[in-house]
């Protein structure tokens, strides 16, 4: 469902050219649970942003569901993000002054569903993450784990084909992290493809596949050896 061919991403300033991703060749199939690991600054988040169409890339081709996304207009990219991709962030990114119900409602509003359809989807998504009774609460009235489950509900409400999670347990204690991971596995078991960036080798090892990124270069490793390259700081900037 996702295929990258020689995809490269370079950040440029007046003095520095940084190769965030180099010639990425990768294929991820429907229903897979893929963890992405690598040292800080290796390009993991950039990879996730490219996958989620939040950033554009300079070279290569990226096919999502067989469609080449390079050169698509903002309108088309927004539609794909809205319909096919769900996001879960490390810092939850809930809108603080909106109740939980309205937070989950955000992507559905842009999808153009009517009120009845939205309500049904929101209730189902909140039920999936076990927060039905908290739908009137504000995010600040929930624990970190609960907030992340709301973020997952928001991602699930649109029934995306692919869920992108950027260190979803990074701000959680171990018990809550385990609950969130269990939830992600449950979602994956129902057919949703999940790509998860993590620093945690244990969490990475629970994925079907592990991709490591080192200095912008993507390589695939066996899940049990996922901790090999984690937390190694490697400079990868090239002066021009």
């Amino acid at each position, binding site marked *: 469902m996702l295929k990258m061919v020689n995809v490269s991403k370079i950040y440029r300033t007046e003095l520095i050219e940084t190769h965030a991703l180099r010639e990425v060749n990768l294929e991820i199939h429907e229903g897979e649970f893929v963890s992405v690991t690598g040292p800080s600054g290796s390009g993991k988040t950039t990879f996730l942003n490219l996958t989620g169409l*939040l*950033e554009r890339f300079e070279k290569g081709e990226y096919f999502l569901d067989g469609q080449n996304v390079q050169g698509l207009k903002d309108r088309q990219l927004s539609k794909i993000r809205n319909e096919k991709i769900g*996001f879960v962030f490390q810092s939850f990114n809930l809108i603080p002054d909106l109740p939980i119900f309205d937070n989950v409602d955000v992507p559905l509003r842009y999808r153009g569903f009517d009120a009845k359809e939205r309500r049904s989807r929101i209730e189902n998504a909140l039920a999936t993450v076990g927060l039905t009774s908290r739908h009137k609460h504000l995010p600040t009235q929930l624990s970190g784990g609960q907030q992340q489950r709301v973020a997952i509900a928001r991602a699930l409400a*649109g029934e995306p084909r692919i869920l992108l999670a950027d260190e979803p347990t990074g701000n959680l204690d171990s018990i809550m992290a385990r609950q969130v991971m269990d939830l992600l596995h449950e979602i994956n078991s129902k057919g949703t493809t999940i790509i998860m960036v993590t620093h945690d080798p244990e969490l990475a090892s629970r994925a079907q596949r592990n991709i490591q990124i080192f200095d912008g270069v993507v390589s695939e490793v066996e899940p049990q050896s996922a901790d090999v390259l984690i937390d190694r700081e490697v400079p990868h900037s090239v002066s021009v």
Partner: protein
Amino acid sequence: MLAYNLQLAWRSLFQRRSLTILMIAAIAIGLGILMTVRTMAYQSRQLPVGERSHDLHLVQMDSRGVEGDEYAQWFEGDAMTYRDARILMNANTSAIRQTYLWKTDVIVSSENEDIQPKRSRTLVGLHNFFTMFEAPFLYGGAWSEDANDNAEPVAVISKRYNDYFFGGENSVGRRLNLGTGVVTVIGVLDDWFLSRNYYDMSFNAARRDDVFIPDSLAIDLNLVRAMQMGCPENEADRASDFAATDIQGLLNSECAWVLFWAELDAASAIADYRDSIEQHMLAQQSFGRYPREKLTYFLTSVAEHMDLVGQFRGREAFLQLMSNLFFAVCLINAIGILLAKFTSKTREIALRLALGARKTTIMTQHLLEVAIIGFLGGCFGLLVSYLGLAGMRSIVVYSSDYAFRAEEIAHAYRLDWTMIGSAFVIAIGSTILVGLYPIWRVCNGNPAQQLKAQ
């Protein structure tokens, strides 16, 4: 989606509320001052009698001797001689109506000795005056054509005088002393609000005439001629006598002192009227008058007069410039505040983009928010403007030593629907304009970076 965007825009007003209030206040104050000045300028530019301002024409004929340069513009010219005015009145012309008028100063008193007499600037004219210049009557009406011819002792008075001398009652049939004569009131004018006193060419914004009497009566009573006497060289030394005492000498003189008006409702009527004037001047020349080689006359409408008056409003132009600049400063402040407000929302905007919102949708949401701010700024700006206009009116009344009543000049300081509408157009339009940059900036950030930033 529009309803959702409106909902978000409304919600956003209450986020960082102090910035919203600051922005509305900046727009309201700037707009309030702008609209105060604009309203005064707008009201003073209003054509005094609407579309009829194009129909009412001042007639001037240069009857001077050979001395002096030719008049090139109507405002250089004199009024008209009494002889010419009478001949034109009786001539068969294309004018719908004609009248002439002049002013006199006279002491007015009533039979009730408890009421102090008043020195009144009195308009002397013909019965047509009231119809031509659309003077509104509260009681009674104008005098008849016969009264014109027979010097009937009648007068029309203003509402102000009716209130003063008769306590506001219907005074038709009551008497007033006018100098040495006695006149019967046959009409009382209602409040008559004009942007400018145009018919006597004073263009005074506030001072109104309080007594109106027939020309023949004023001549009979030999009331003083409070007019500028445009006399030729050979009669110049008699001008003061003409004005004060020598009425017969004045009527037969070449001194130009009466204002002559003709109502002409079509281009063809104007052309025909020009022919009539030219024929009249040629005929008079054959009798030895109009000694200048080139016969010069002017036929100019009220609308043309008001145009010219508008060009000489230096103080008004300066005030407009200053208020425009002040409003611009307020808008520049608003840009800064908008930037601060929207920048604080970049994370939410990035999130919405990530969740599938289009940039255009986000921009629409923020444009709506800015439009609401502009609308609210417009509402409060109108309130500021209302207070500003009331203040300006009070200053004028005070500086005139209360010679003007506030209600007499209220029309010049009134916000009408045109100005209210333009206030909202300016407020919303300019706020959207200054909001474009902040909106563009926050909508074109990198959502990936903003979502990652803690």
